[in-house]
């Protein structure tokens, strides 16, 4: 616990550096990731992340130092090269994009590993720490490095906010952007460059192997909370920053632990939580909505069946047994009973001596469904010219969806008809 306060009181200036650094790195990659995610190029980021390894090694071999400036340039070159190659392989051969990504990713990484092991075996003393690029080490962010990485991160965020509108356009509708006269190719190139830059900076915190998560996961999580790109970018950046902060803490408390995996675990937990509990788009809320709709359809069908039963002998309010209803229309018994109880609770039905009967409200509701069904059948046969024996199925679905506005429109268009195509009375 002591370390917790020690860390979060930010009394040690080196802690401040590490915290600012990791937050900047993770947040900026989350921002760029939002756009690669929306362009459905999420895995390309994975390829770039792996492909920067040979660049870093090459820069080290050529310069002989671990100066972050050289390493960033090296990483940038091979990261960029990997994207060009993926693009070329997919457009110029029959290899599909997924295979191209997998090949470039693994081969570049293999070359990187070959170089890295070669450097390590060469006995060059200054190479130690080069492998912290593999799994990330936020705590290694000090002074000079922090400035370099920090500057790149700031450049990234500024560029994204400057070209926000353009990036948004090409993410959603390439052709529309083209027709507006936007330099689509140039913007795409900008996004590519930003992706490479984001990867190059992020690897210090997360490492090359898990860098993909920093691009993909915050964006995927943020997508569940909003439909607005700006909000989504901000949410993704915040989630990224939080995971970066906690990652820095872990790195501080347990120096032997690689930071990257912890950051990824945290952001993944946030994402998983979002997938399930986010309102509207989340799995739970979607399941609830679906269940509600199922209930609604079941209830409406039941009321409709009751109304049909009453139509024959004009005894709409007569009580009926569950068996009678099933005879009219087959419902699974258990679902029928739960629906009957639900409708009673909501005041649409009442139960007397084991018989179920309409209340006033229930009759109105059942009648409306029947009316909508028949109106729609008539509409289909009259305006869409579908044969009368083919319209039932369609009406069966649409009757639960038609809004009062459409209902009024249908009535007006069909001039309050008396009969549907099957010569059945349309109840008003």
């Amino acid at each position, binding site marked *: 616990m002591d370390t917790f306060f020690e860390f979060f009181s930010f009394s040690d200036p080196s802690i401040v550096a590490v915290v600012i650094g990791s937050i900047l790195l993770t947040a900026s990659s989350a921002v760029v990731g939002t756009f690669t995610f929306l362009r459905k190029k999420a895995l390309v980021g994975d390829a770039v992340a792996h492909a920067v390894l040979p660049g870093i090694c090459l820069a080290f071999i050529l310069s002989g130092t671990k100066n972050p400036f050289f390493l960033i340039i090296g990483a940038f070159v091979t990261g960029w090269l990997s994207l060009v190659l993926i693009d070329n392989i997919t457009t110029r051969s029959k290899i*599909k994009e997924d295979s191209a990504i997998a090949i470039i990713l693994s081969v570049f990484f293999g070359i990187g590993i070959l170089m890295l*092991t070669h450097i390590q075996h060469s006995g060059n003393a200054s190479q130690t720490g080069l492998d912290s690029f593999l799994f990330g080490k936020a705590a290694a962010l000090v002074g000079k490095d922090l400035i370099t990485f920090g500057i790149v991160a700031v450049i990234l965020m500024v560029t994204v906010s400057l070209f926000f509108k353009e990036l948004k356009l090409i993410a959603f509708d390439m052709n529309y952007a083209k027709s507006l006269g936007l330099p689509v190719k140039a913007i795409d190139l900008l996004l590519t460059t930003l992706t490479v830059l984001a990867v190059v900076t992020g690897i210090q915190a997360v490492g090359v192997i898990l860098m993909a998560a920093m691009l993909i996961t915050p964006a995927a999580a943020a997508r569940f909370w909003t439909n607005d790109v700006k909000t989504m970018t901000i949410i993704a950046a915040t989630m990224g920053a939080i995971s970066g902060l906690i990652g820095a803490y872990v790195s501080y408390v347990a120096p032997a632990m690689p930071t990257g995996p912890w950051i990824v675990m945290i952001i993944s937990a946030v994402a998983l939580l979002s997938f399930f509990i986010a309102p509207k*788009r989340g799995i739970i809320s979607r399941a609830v909505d679906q269940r509600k709709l199922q209930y609604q359809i079941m209830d409406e069908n039941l009321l409709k069946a009751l109304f049909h039963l009453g139509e024959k002998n004009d005894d709409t309010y007569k009580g009926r047994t569950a068996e009678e209803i099933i005879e009219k229309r087959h419902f699974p018994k258990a679902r029928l009973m739960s629906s009957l109880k639900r409708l009673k609770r909501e005041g649409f039905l009442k139960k007397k001596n084991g018989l179920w009967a309409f209340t006033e409200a229930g009759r109105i509701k059942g009648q409306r469904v029947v009316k909508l069904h028949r109106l729609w059948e008539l509409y289909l046969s009259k305006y869409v010219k579908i044969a009368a024996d083919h319209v039932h199925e369609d009406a069966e679905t649409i009757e639960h969806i038609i809004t009062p506005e459409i209902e009024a429109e249908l009535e007006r268009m069909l001039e309050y008809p008396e009969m549907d195509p099957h010569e059945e009375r349309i109840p008003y």
Partner: protein
Amino acid sequence: MDAFYIITVSTLIAISCGILGCFLILRKMAMVGDAISHAVLPGIVLAYFITGTRDSIWMIVGAGMLGIFTTFLIEFFHKKARLQTDAAIGVTFTWLFALGIILISVFAGQVDLDQDCVLYGEIAYVPIDLWITESGQNYGPRALHVSYIVLILIVLFVRVGFKQLYLTTFDPAFAATVGISVSLWNYLLMGAVSMTTVASFDSVGAILVVALLVAPPATAYLLTDKFKYMLIITCIIAVIISFFGYYLAVYLDGSIAGAIVTVAGILFMLAFLFSPSNGIVFKRYLQKKEAAKLSQEPAQ
């Protein structure tokens, strides 16, 4: 003798991976293969920790199940959460891989595994790691036995299920109409991929196994249009990359697995440029010839 063992083991692994990879790339599932090879890591670490040995059947079974779980999770995120496929893959495997790395750090000292081993395996140790029975009988390198058993299993699997795999790969709609369960064979294939990944893990590590899954089949795919030839060429490439990869690694004093993958990449680039049927150089030459022929023809 050491070189012979190493090259043999890596060839056997590369052939197993390549055969499965042929199906993967034609199903456009190369990245799912990538995801599985990352995602089995926590299973491997836990199995090491629980059983304390490397050569346990439980490890292969456990990791195989984790691979199927990964496939399921990707489908689940895609279908239930309506997450786009690429993001579903990305989220799933990075999370499981991160978990695996953390487990390695937590169990460090208790488990004979380190991050380097995860990254590029320890194929150089193949000749040292011998399989010696309790009575002292020496049966040679253990990895050798594992790799040929896996190869036999894979060949059997593909041989027995060839029709089903072939049909579900090329025409899933038709396969479904003749009563072949597309999703069952998908899961079986993914199970096979995870088992192979686990078996290859010691030798080439979790990430480079992807290269063996994808690069040789893709190279073969550029050289032929017939599926049977594609399988055969993949096997030939497996031999070539293992042989030259080993000597490249010796020459550079670097990781053998890394070198094998490097050679695989070079072969792919060569096929991409110079393949007689699909290479871009040859295609350009054909186009030029065609253009010349057209311009020579007298205008009608």
